[in-house]
């Protein structure tokens, strides 16, 4: 153990933590010492077309197609979307629906591939020399490779790399905090692939045009810190590792930026408004592979942990591998777990169906035993204030809960419902075990539903009004047409009557009859001219 240097003493962020926050038992030692291992190709891959925030990808293959490793099978649709590639070579056995890796297990569009075991690469993406490439080329390559935020938010990375056009960016923050308990995939990746990650960081920094790079790592990962500290610049851009306190939710983008720069991102704004962009360490590694080697995002490191797993490990898994096969690879389950989660224990999602696939945002598969997830009776709120003390946003969750329970959603919005990160600190800290986050999720869903309904109503009203206007315009046009026709008819009748009268009154030479025609044509043309002027 070394003494802190003077310089580190002068860096207050190592001592001043984010407001609120909690300190759950990290239990990272279960898997932190297992090196990343490659999992063999599974028997089946189920690749959902929606693994990212934004629009669902469009399938590019059909049943019985033979695909090669890295082949584009789902094409990004719209500006916020991501490409999806075949993780290995094999035959497409279905393009249909399968249960989502989500508590609901609702069927989502999924491409199912039976690997042929050859693992034959198709044509890779063209390699790029980031030193010579323009920012646009780098972003395009990242988009082509289907890279999304690997921390779990799964926001398409290329969209974030293009923020340069709209914001004056100066700092790239690499989020290596990994504040969720149990998860060690970023930790291991930083320890084992520090150089690759730094290369990826440099590429992203070039694409963003930033002047400095800060790699933020929680103080409970000394080896990762040491590994990342070997580099002080990435592609010529100065970089430093900043140790941040071990505290949940340190990895929250806005809180990390606050810890590092001391500046608070305004509500409803982006960190880019402060000139800061945050990317995950795992994303940097994926960018490195995509740009240097032309490899799309077809696998990721997943932490398999929890006391319910026989052999906790960090495994590089092909996207689409069924959870059950990953668990099997890790020796199976010791006992029937109390909860099976995708992601960390604070914000992770419980799943029921073990055949659901690992997707791009799956950072962990946790099999928690009953001892690890104590399930207690809910008691009434005793207003102890632990939820308010723990809230990193400065909300009063007990009040939100009371208002939501009594159906006062507007009142809940007034005291900050929409500012909630749903990080779970309040529920974690509640001595009465009140499901505060669940209530907040419910309220947010309800609000979205109401919003949607209101939007729909307004849209229907707008369409009805437009239709009415259209119909009125058509009726008006018709009326005018009728009037015009009537006028013409009247004129014609008049002419005919005149002609008849003339014919009747005198012997008219037949060649005089057509003279009236050019006259009316002339009159009409002058009227038209008057209208257009």
């Amino acid at each position: 153990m070394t003494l802190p240097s003077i310089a580190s003493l002068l860096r207050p962020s190592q001592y001043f933590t984010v407001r609120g926050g909690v300190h759950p038992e990290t239990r990272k030692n279960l898997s932190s010492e297992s090196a990343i291992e490659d999992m063999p190709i599974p028997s089946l891959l189920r690749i959902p077309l929606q693994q990212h925030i934004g629009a669902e990808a469009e399938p590019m293959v059909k049943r019985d197609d033979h695909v090669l490793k890295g082949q584009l099978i789902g094409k990004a649709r719209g500006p916020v979307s991501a490409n999806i590639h075949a993780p290995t070579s094999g035959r497409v056995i279905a393009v249909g629906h399968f249960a989502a890796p989500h508590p609901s297990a609702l069927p989502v569009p999924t491409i199912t591939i039976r690997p042929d075991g050859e693992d034959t690469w198709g044509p890779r993406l063209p390699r790029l020399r980031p030193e010579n490439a323009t920012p646009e080329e780098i972003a395009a390559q990242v988009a082509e490779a289907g890279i999304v935020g690997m921390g779990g938010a799964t926001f398409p990375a290329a969209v974030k790399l293009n923020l340069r056009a709209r914001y004056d960016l100066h700092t790239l923050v690499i989020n290596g905090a990994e504040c969720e308990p149990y998860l060690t995939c970023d930790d291991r990746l930083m320890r084992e692939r520090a150089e690759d990650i730094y290369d990826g960081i440099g590429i992203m920094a070039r694409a963003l045009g930033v002047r400095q790079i800060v790699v933020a790592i929680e103080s409970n990962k000394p080896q990762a810190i040491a590994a990342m500290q070997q580099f002080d610049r990435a592609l010529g851009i100065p970089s430093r590792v900043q140790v941040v306190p071990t505290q949940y939710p340190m990895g929250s983008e806005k809180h990390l930026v606050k810890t590092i720069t001391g500046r608070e991102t305004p509500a409803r704004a982006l960190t880019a408004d402060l000139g800061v962009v945050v990317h995950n360490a795992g994303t940097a590694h994926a960018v490195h592979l995509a740009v240097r080697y032309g490899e799309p995002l077809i696998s990721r490191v997943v932490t398999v942990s929890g006391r319910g797993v026989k052999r906790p490990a960090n495994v590089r898994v092909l996207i689409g591998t069924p959870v059950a096969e990953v668990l099997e690879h890790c020796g199976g389950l010791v006992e029937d777990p109390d909860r099976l989660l995708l992601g960390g224990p604070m914000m992770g999602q419980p799943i029921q169906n073990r055949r659901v696939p690992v997707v791009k945002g799956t950072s962990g598969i946790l099999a928690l035993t009953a001892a690890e997830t104590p399930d207690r009776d809910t008691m009434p709120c005793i207003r102890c204030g632990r939820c308010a003390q723990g809230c990193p946003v400065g909300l009063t969750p007990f009040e939100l809960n009371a208002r939501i329970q009594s159906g006062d959603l507007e009142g809940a919005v007034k005291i900050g419902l929409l500012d909630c990160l749903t990080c779970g600190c309040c529920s974690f800290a509640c001595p009465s075990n009140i499901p505060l986050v669940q209530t907040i999720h419910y309220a947010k869903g309800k609000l979205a539903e109401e919003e949607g309904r209101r939007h729909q109503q307004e849209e229907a009203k707008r369409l009805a009004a437009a239709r009415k206007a259209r119909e009125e315009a058509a009726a008006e046009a018709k009326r005018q047409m009728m009037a015009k026709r009537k006028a013409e008819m009247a004129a014609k009748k008049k002419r005919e009557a005149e002609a008849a009268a003339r014919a009747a009154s005198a012997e008219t030479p037949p060649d005089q009859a057509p003279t009236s025609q050019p006259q009316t044509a002339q009159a009409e043309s002058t009227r038209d001219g008057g209208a257009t002027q």
Partner: protein
Amino acid sequence: MTAPMLASGPHTHTRFTVSRTMLTVSVALAPATLFGLYQFGWPAIFLFLVTVISAWVFEVACLWIAGKPIGPFARDGSAILTGWLVAMTLPPYAPWWVGMLGAGIAIIIAKHMFGGLGQNLFNPAMVARAMLLVALPVHMTTWVPPVGILDGPDIWQALAITFAGSQEYDVVSSASTLSHMKSQLGAGATMSEIMPGLADLEARMIGLVPGSLGETSTGLLLLGGLLLVGMRIITPVIPLAVLGTIAGLAALTSFVAPDRYAPPILHLTAGSTMLCAFFIATDYVTSPVTAAGKLIYGVAIGALVFVIRTWGAFPEGVAFAVLLMNACTPLIETYVRPRVFGRTRTGKPLPVKKSKSPRGEKK
């Protein structure tokens, strides 16, 4: 394949629970209580048991009448703690029905009529104390000197004192520090004349003075209070605010007129100042939740305690001060809220500076 129950996150939880919190508070109260019980002997022990047990019985009865699940609530320890705190404020030789009445007022009127655990507006123990003090001024101000369990009445005499209202045991009735001071000051004596007649600082710290059953040992209460702060059961805001305000006002007044006002150290070590600062005012249910709210609440309680003691009709003002501020808690909660991340105090988003195009996506 079994279907594990689907529960919302987080899937890990702190070890703090309601009953654990109540248990810790009980542990923190125990040294002062045990010492008080030892000092005042068997009648105090009987009274304590009667109060605590009747509080628990009332709790169960109320739960049963209200149709609430009895099991988890009866085991959470909150009723026992309430009864305990009521007992702490009673004179040691008070008859059994005073303890039972106090427990009944606290549990039935102050707690369950408002809706049970977590719903009460006023601190149950203080409601009981205030009502008893007004209704039974003689019983509630009959103090006895602490002579120790061995030199006091034996078990049979004690049973007679507590349960039969016996006056046979010859007890030297004496005044508590604050009431003695109050009556002397009222009679026109100066502080310098009164001070020699009061128990010295050491006696007050250890608890060798007449007073309520459990609130005489300032030192042990302070110890328990520090334990609560150390265990993170309470934040130090309210205790510091209460004690600081009392000490500050006392220092100011005794500096201006040393003969008419008691010095700060007397205020801090006499009466139930310590019990109030660490155990009563910090009651979760009836105090504000935010730190700023707690500060206002604590300062106001301290000021009210000082004002009632100095200029009011009662020698001790803790119960009234706490009850008055309990009534203000909803108001404080409404106006004093933490600032939301990324927003100003008024709830507007922080101003956005420096961006290439103001026509971006932001609103």
